[in-house]
């Protein structure tokens, strides 16, 4: 699972490869901008207060709303999964003009939750696409009537394929 993290003007790509949980401790293989790292976390006394060890360096981490504290220092962070991030890019700037949903990445169509002729509202989940073992709900870009659904449940699609068109 890949994420794009924005802190101030910096952007990091963090890819979590594997997760293993044993007696309260979760272990992660991850890459940070391609650099492999080993991390483990365990709760201290609530889910937002963790002990984080990255490559044997120990940190005390607390989570707030849009912010994490590392050893008492605050960092304002924005986390998007890479799919959402690519989706945002695919959409470009004129989201309100958009009439199509395209696949943000190659995947498997798990469900189509609307049909041609139905009215959908902006933000309504219409297609579920599975990629990298995660299910992603693709949302209607604006209010409208569904004009075309050129895919079906069970299909495999490529990144960029059009999945749904609005009138």
């Amino acid at each position, binding site marked *: 699972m890949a994420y794009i*993290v924005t802190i101030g003007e910096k952007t990091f790509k963090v890819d979590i490869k594997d997760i293993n949980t044993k007696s309260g401790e979760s272990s992660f293989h991850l890459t940070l901008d391609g650099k492999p790292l080993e991390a483990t*976390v365990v709760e201290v006394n609530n889910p937002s207060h963790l002990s*984080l060890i990255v490559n044997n*360096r120990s940190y005390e981490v607390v*989570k707030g709303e849009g912010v994490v504290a*590392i050893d008492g*220092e605050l960092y*304002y962070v924005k986390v998007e999964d890479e799919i959402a991030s690519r989706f945002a890019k695919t959409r470009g700037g004129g989201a309100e003009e958009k009439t199509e949903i395209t696949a943000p990445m190659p995947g498997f169509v798990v469900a189509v939750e609307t049909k041609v002729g139905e009215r959908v509202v902006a933000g309504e989940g219409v297609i579920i696409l599975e990629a990298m073992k995660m299910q992603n709900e693709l949302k209607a870009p604006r209010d409208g009537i569904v004009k075309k659904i050129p895919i079906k449940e069970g299909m495999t699609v490529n990144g960029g394929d059009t999945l749904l068109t609005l009138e």
Partner: protein
Amino acid sequence: MFKKILVANRGEIAVRVLRACKELGIPTVTVYSEADRNALHVRYGDEAYCIGEPPSTESYLKIEKIVDVAKKCGAEAVHPGYGFLAENTLFAKRCEKEGITFIGPSSRAIKLLGDKTVARKTMSNAGISIVPGTEKGLTDEKDAMRIGLKLGFPLMIKAAGGGGGKGMRIVKKKEELKSAIKTAMAEAGSAFGDPRIYFERYLINPRHIEFQILADSYGNVVHLCERECSIQRRHQKMIEESPSCIMTPELRKRMGEIACKVVLTCNYTNAGTVEFLVDKDKNFYFLEMNTRLQVEHPVTELVTGVDIVKEQIHISAGEKLTLKQKDVSIRGAAIECRISAEDPYNNFMPSSGKIMQLVEPSGPGVRVESGIFEGFEVPILYDPLIAKLLTWGRDRNEAIARMKRALSEYRIYGIKTTIPFHLHVMDNDSFISGKYDTGFVEKLSFERGGRTQDEIAAIAAVIYATKQQKQVTIQKRGKGYNLWKMAGRVGFKGQWHT
């Protein structure tokens, strides 16, 4: 000894006084405003009485209500802490009248020393150096103009009726004098109901050094050496220490003797603080005397070993001081950092909110005086001082190292605090060398910075996202776990642009 003591205050100082009472085995009574029902002091005392609505004018400043509670519950003495009614002549007088012991000086002494011009004149008459200036209050603008011009510039205008920076003006050249007099008088009038002002020569960046004294009712006076309080912002102390880096045994002896003389001149009893300004040539001038327990009293406790609050109680109970001047000495060095609910990155704007997480430092040489706890809503209504962190070391360097260590252990999430400011000062060369004066904070360039652990923050953020997603999946719920709004130290320069 008193059978019961009422503590007429809140926050860390109320807890401090309650602890002293507990160590003396004296039952305690607390009072609280509606905003403080679950506050530490309310839970610490043996009895607790609500005295009104949240604004202090409706509660902690209500003399009538507090006296009523004291009479109702049979408290024989009242400790006012600092602030609120601590230097209120009317309150002290009322207690005297009702036969309740006010743990502090007599109302007469509070009055005498509360009027700054009277105090100056008294000291001057007794042969004590005061900062040059006028010795009587001025109400006439023309008189003031004439006298001010004669004294020359830079010049300090102060209110005769009270302190705290109100009615205070620095006048650098004669063109500014007239309007400064006018506005200072107006400000003093509205703040203290007393428009009188007086002039002092403006000393350029002196050091602020004060002497803690104890005086009993039998004419015995001792001083507990000095505190250096030059780290101030807008006349508000932020960091205090003892001993002062400029002190010599000889200077301490001279200043201590003058401090005791001030006390004897006023027939002052109980604990008090004589404040001096000290110039570059180590000339010192009487500034004023604070007729109460000071915020920074623990600094002196750490280096002298004397429990000042317990001494106050003993003195008020009519006991003789057992401490002699020859028994007083300084061991090591102590520093206090005032932890305030203020945003040091935003002009020290007050910050209120709920304490979401709190970890207090401890271990060798650390003392915490705190008025907060996890879950407490810090009210915006009262003083932003929420805790004091003190460290002691065998020498000043050790005290600084411990302060850095303790500050780095301190975690207060949910509100903004002055912890990052203090961490910054502890790394400042002028502070470390001890070569600083009251201009220190003004000259300090303090901006966001510090360690950059962006990569760790990015990893942590992703791990939270993963765990949250996992939990959402498991729980089949959309909301995830409860996240909370948080503020504290910020370690990254650029991130506020977002």
